[in-house]
């Protein structure tokens, strides 16, 4: 598996080199999900977000992406302005994958790759890295849950961005792909990337852990 683009040259990697949570609290529908959550992550580090269902893992990831308002606290991206960091520095891969059932995998991969700043060549590399090549002409509705997740993950590789926010990335994947995606995550960390992943099972990479009590 080749790497889509050399990060050091692209300059994208340096957009986010640290991620800090300071006393975060999130309220959803009148209920306080959690408060006092803090974390400091450096380039090359990953953090597993754990906690029971409904403890706010997804909301926390969406708050980092700027999609959910914080009740209190502060999310910092080092010296990078949050608007810039969210516009060009992070990927969010979750259950809602943004893929349209009636379009082909190729169309969807091509669109999201371009949307996130990748190129046709990087989309091809990503399709190879995630073994999507034989599936590209299928409509998204024909893909299995695991194949669909791999298609969503392809944009992580196709358009390199330093911070990956992953919502239960492993759950629809089979054993082989859990292992393989572990390899992709390790490569991302080695390149100076950061990962925050909401998980129920342990991540196959060395990582810090942040437990939300629920």
């Amino acid at each position: 598996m080749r790497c889509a683009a050399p990060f050091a040259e692209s300059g994208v990697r340096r957009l986010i080199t640290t991620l800090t949570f300071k006393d975060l609290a999130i309220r959803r529908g009148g209920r306080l999900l959690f408060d006092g959550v803090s974390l400091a992550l450096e380039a090359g580090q990953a953090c597993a977000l754990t906690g029971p269902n409904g403890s706010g893992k997804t909301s926390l990831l969406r708050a980092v992406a700027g999609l959910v308002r914080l009740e209190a606290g502060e999310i910092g991206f080092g010296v990078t302005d949050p608007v810039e960091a969210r516009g060009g520095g992070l990927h969010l891969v979750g259950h809602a994958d943004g893929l349209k059932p009636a379009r082909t995998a190729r169309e969807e991969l091509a669109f999201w790759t371009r949307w996130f700043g990748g190129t046709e060549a990087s989309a091809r590399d990503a399709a190879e890295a995630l073994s999507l090549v034989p599936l590209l002409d299928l409509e998204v509705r024909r893909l299995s849950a695991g194949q669909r997740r791999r298609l969503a993950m392809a944009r992580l590789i196709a358009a390199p961005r330093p911070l990956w926010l992953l919502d239960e990335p492993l759950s629809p994947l089979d054993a082989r792909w859990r292992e393989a995606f572990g390899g992709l995550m390790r490569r991302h960390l080695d390149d100076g990337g950061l990962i925050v992943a909401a998980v129920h099972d342990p991540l196959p990479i060395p990582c810090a852990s942040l437990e939300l009590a629920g």
Partner: protein
Amino acid sequence: MNRLAVLIARETALAWGRGGGPLVALGFYAGVATLLPLGIGPEPERLAAIALGAAWVALALASLLSLERLFERDYEDGALDLLVLSRTPLELTCLVKCAGQWLATGAPLALAAPVAAIALGAPPALAPLVLASALLGGIAFAFMGGIGAALSLGARRGGVLTAVIVLPLFVPPVIFGGGALDSFAAGLPWTGGFLLLAAYAAAAVALGPLAMAAACRNALS
């Protein structure tokens, strides 16, 4: 720019397939334009008198059809999240989405408008003005309609809510466009109404995306 080019291609393709796309809108338009003479009576004089107004109102109604899915599908499947996570401002993204909606349904409907007007008995000399005002009116319908579609995100039965929000916003273009056509048919100065319609369309394009983006952000958070 590159990013906007791929977005408009995708949005037009999606709008083309959304809820049947232009075919369903055209079929609905033809249906309304056919029902009216059946209800009003077949006398050519009476029909000719209402032809222009009827063609306009039917156009406004047909523009409503696929609006509800404009943001809803992207909201439900997570695409809206991903569209936000970009250097492209959400306002611009909303503008492109509405432009795609107009290209896929508004423009085909505008092409059908002169046909419907003439079929109802309007003088053929009016056809160019009907086409021009339907093109402009379609822009106003798409961008004002987008506001309603974005505001009703997350609501059950969002389609009905969209219609209720949007129909009052459709009143000015219907009045301006209908007025310009009536004046032209009567040999009176018609440019005033037409320019007001153009101004309303321009305002919709300029202000609509701001409201849509705010409504989308609100729905996501």
